């Protein structure tokens, strides 16, 4: 009986140790997933948020992108647009955050693939965006490319994917 209890405790300790290991040293896939979740949270703001908070969020949003990052937007019903570099992204983010009453961004069905060099990653997801007071929302398939810079993963390219051609 004692041996059984000891073995059970040992197994529980091993499981807990493994869990702690994954918490403190997450896999690249998990890091990228967390990054995408934080990106959605940063891009989301409510009508109650002040201009200062919105400007702060727009500034934080730029921090997710590499210096040479590109955002390529080509959604149905809207003019195609390309943003190159952090400055353009920040300008567009500030403009968008100031003009929209509120914005809710969710990234659903995120799939992450880590490159063979372990320094790049690609993520595909469905962006669900709700802007304004209505319950209407837009959906758009997106593809993100990440590059490991130091210990951080930064977005080098974000582009819309045409689900229907």
């Amino acid at each position, binding site marked *: 009986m004692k041996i059984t209890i000891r073995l059970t405790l040992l197994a529980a300790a091993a499981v807990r140790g493994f869990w702690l290991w994954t918490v403190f040293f997450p896999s690249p896939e998990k890091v990228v997933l967390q990054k995408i979740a934080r990106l959605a949270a940063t891009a989301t703001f409510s009508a109650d948020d002040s201009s200062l908070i919105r400007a702060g969020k727009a500034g934080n949003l730029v921090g997710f992108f590499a210096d040479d990052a590109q955002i390529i937007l080509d959604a149905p019903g809207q003019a195609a647009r390309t943003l190159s570099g952090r400055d353009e992204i920040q300008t567009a983010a500030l403009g968008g955050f100031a003009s929209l009453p509120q914005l809710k961004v969710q990234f659903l*069905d995120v799939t992450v693939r880590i490159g063979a060099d372990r320094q790049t990653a690609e993520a595909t997801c469905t962006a669900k965006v709700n802007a304004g007071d209505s319950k209407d929302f837009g959906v758009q398939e997106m593809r993100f490319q990440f590059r490991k810079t130091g210990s951080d993963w930064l977005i080098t390219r974000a582009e819309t994917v045409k689900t229907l051609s």
Partner: protein
Amino acid sequence: MFVYSQLSGNLRFNTLVPNANEPTTQPHWFQTMLIGRRPRATLVRILALVVVCFVTFEFVLLPIRIDGISMQPTYHTGQIDLINRLAYIRHEPQRGDIVSVRLAGTSVMFMKRIIGLPGETVEFHHGHAYINGQLLNEPYVKFACQWEHAPIVCDATQFYVVGDNRSMAFDLHTHGRAERERIVGKLFL
């Protein structure tokens, strides 16, 4: 005979007659109501039900809630429906089928009607759809429109999908060629 074969099969009935000399230990009526007279059998039933529901609603029938106006008047916002994921196991999607087209996953999908099959040319002229130059009869389209679009050829793996609500502006209506692998299934109802 039928009853006999059932009784001699897997079905078991509680046919024990209580002995008058033995004290009866009847479970509390609330316990009986909650978990039945045979808790182990109830647990097995619950587990079986959970497994059946999981398999059915994960791999066979995908429950969906419709949102948007692109399929009006056939479908309205708020309607609940099911996607039959096994609909195209034996045959390919057909013209007129209402299908769901996945984006990155199945959390959010487009629900559209197939009007063009692989290899066909689809065009819109004065609001009417033409397949290989022939006018397509679409009784489900109730709202008139003036859509104009040059011919588009579907590849061998593509289906042309569009909503029933053609009163929307052409650019605002999501439609086009969907790859076969993106078609998740056919609407059940």
